[in-house]
């Protein structure tokens, strides 16, 4: 990022922010160089942004499969490692196995979903980051990465579109 410059434009509402994004795209800022930071979830569609890629559902499925396999191991493999007869039941009865399979599948799925959020969002991340605390008060911020020469131009455009402030983003400890 040595040659790139980060700008943080703060808007008070969705509409000017959406306008600003459209304008920025016209100015040649690629969608990949923009990021919207908000205090409440604002969908991509509202801002006219491309859909975000997320791995969470895939990870969940993977976790479910892993959990199911663990369940299979517990229900069908472990009783054969040291066979013990109880109450005249088979060593690996199916109905109780269903319960084990279900619980382990769900556990695998939910843990991997949770872990998926961490992986996809690079959590936890305590390095300095571009941020202003007003965002959590309801402001919407657009973080733009652009070559330094374009910075002034973009700043002007954004101010004209109603940005409350546009400044060079400084990475700070949150």
């Amino acid at each position: 990022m040595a040659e790139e410059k980060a700008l943080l434009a703060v808007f008070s509402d969705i509409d000017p922010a959406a306008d600003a994004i459209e304008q920025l795209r016209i100015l040649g800022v690629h969608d990949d160089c923009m990021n919207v930071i908000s205090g409440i979830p604002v969908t991509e569609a509202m801002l006219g942004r491309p859909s975000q890629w997320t791995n969470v559902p895939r990870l969940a499925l993977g976790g479910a499969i892993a959990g199911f396999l663990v369940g299979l191991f517990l229900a069908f493999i472990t009783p054969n490692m040291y066979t013990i007869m109880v109450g005249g039941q088979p060593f690996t009865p199916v109905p109780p196995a269903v319960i084990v399979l279900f619980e382990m599948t769900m556990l695998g799925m939910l843990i991997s979903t949770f872990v998926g959020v961490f992986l996809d969002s690079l959590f936890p991340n305590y390095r300095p980051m571009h941020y202003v605390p007003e965002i959590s008060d309801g402001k919407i911020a657009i973080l733009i990465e652009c070559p330094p020469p374009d910075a002034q131009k973009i700043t002007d455009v954004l101010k004209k579109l109603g940005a409350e402030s546009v400044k060079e983003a400084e990475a700070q400890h949150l």
Partner: protein
Amino acid sequence: MADHKPHTSHEEHLREQHLMLDPMPRGKMNEMVMESMHTTSWKFWLVFGLLSALVAYALFYKWGVMILEGLGVAGVNRPSYWGIFLVNTVFWIGISHAGTFISAILRVFKAEFRRPFTRAAELMTTFGLIQAGFSIFMHMGRVWLSYWLMPIPNERQLWPNFHSPLSWDLLAITTYLLSSTMYLFLPLIPDLAMARDRTPDGTWQKVFYRVLALGFRGTEGEWTHLRNALNIFAFAIIPVMFSVHTIVSWDFAMATRPGWNSTIFGPYFVIGALHSGMGAVVMVLAVVRGTMKNMKYFIRPEHFEAIGKLMLIISMSWAYFFFNDYIVQWYGGDKWTKELLHWHEAGPMGWMWFGMLICNVAIPWAILWNKKWRSTPWLIFIVGLLINVGMWFERYIIVPISLTINRMPFTWRLYQPGIEVWLGIGTLAFFILLYMAASRLIPLIPVWEVQEGQMAHSLRKYGRETVVTVSELE
């Protein structure tokens, strides 16, 4: 809130009633929530101190005594081998069901009234499960060996016995505890970030929030992952919740005992759990509303009204399942089951059986049908309390009272609680203590969810009528 005026327009009236139509700037709302956490009177600390002392004595000291001396200091005996330990386990697991019900089922069905109190309910889930865990470990004769129940082998590759309902229980409760804790934490992250942003540097709270907020900023990606994850959780945790209480019921239903060996126990326990859970939610909400600053804005009579309706439905369902269980057992004519039913109703603890029906059915039905009554916080608090008493009675009837009657009349014997009363009080105190601590540390109101909801709500005129409209934002 504004005063009632006869000429107040219908629109104003609606805004007054509904949180979702009564928006407030985000910054202001954040401030209110932060204030609610930080406004702490001496009364709070007095109660907190007393409860801490109670937990230290009733839970930890008494438990220590019981571990050292053996379960003889409790009231368990032959044939009531389980006693109040299992009553409390089932009770706390039941309490924990409300959180999931509110935040998962109501989320899936987009019941908007849920928004301000999902977190309060989810906290109950996690804290309730912690108490359930305590109760079930207390119950063990050799608790120091409880790790033998975990799915890890001994040196001869002998694993736990998955034929046993208790093994299923362990898996289910562990799954549920982990899932519900994760489900509590995920939507908490943005609010922790908010708290982080509003906490001055150099305080320990700042470090606390910084660490827990994980570096959340609210980027598009973060929100997307979070929303996806929350949707998966909301759907997946519902069957987990149902499985937990069903499996708890199977601890009883799988046994070859009169009264327990019933196929309806699964759904009967689940509905019972929701019954007590909802009762506990209104109690918590009423207390939070009454004692914490700014909460009258977030928690309004409309919420009690909505939960009251749910409670009424659940109470009716409980009565349905109860009757189902009862009539099948009664009609069956098995000698021992008949003795058991007779013992329930006419035995020395018969008052409890009738108390259960009054608390779980008669009182809820008598009060909750009336919209005004069910919107009254103190009244619905009492109803919630009685439902919890009634549901505790129900579990007491199922565990020690039913255990009295078995197929060997020579061994029938009454159960008299011993140290487990202290331990039960200890878990209750610990639950309240955890809740009080949480209320000082984490935002009880999911601010971003309330904001999201307020964004989606608007009023629209159809002819002369002004109606609430909700837009699909997600």
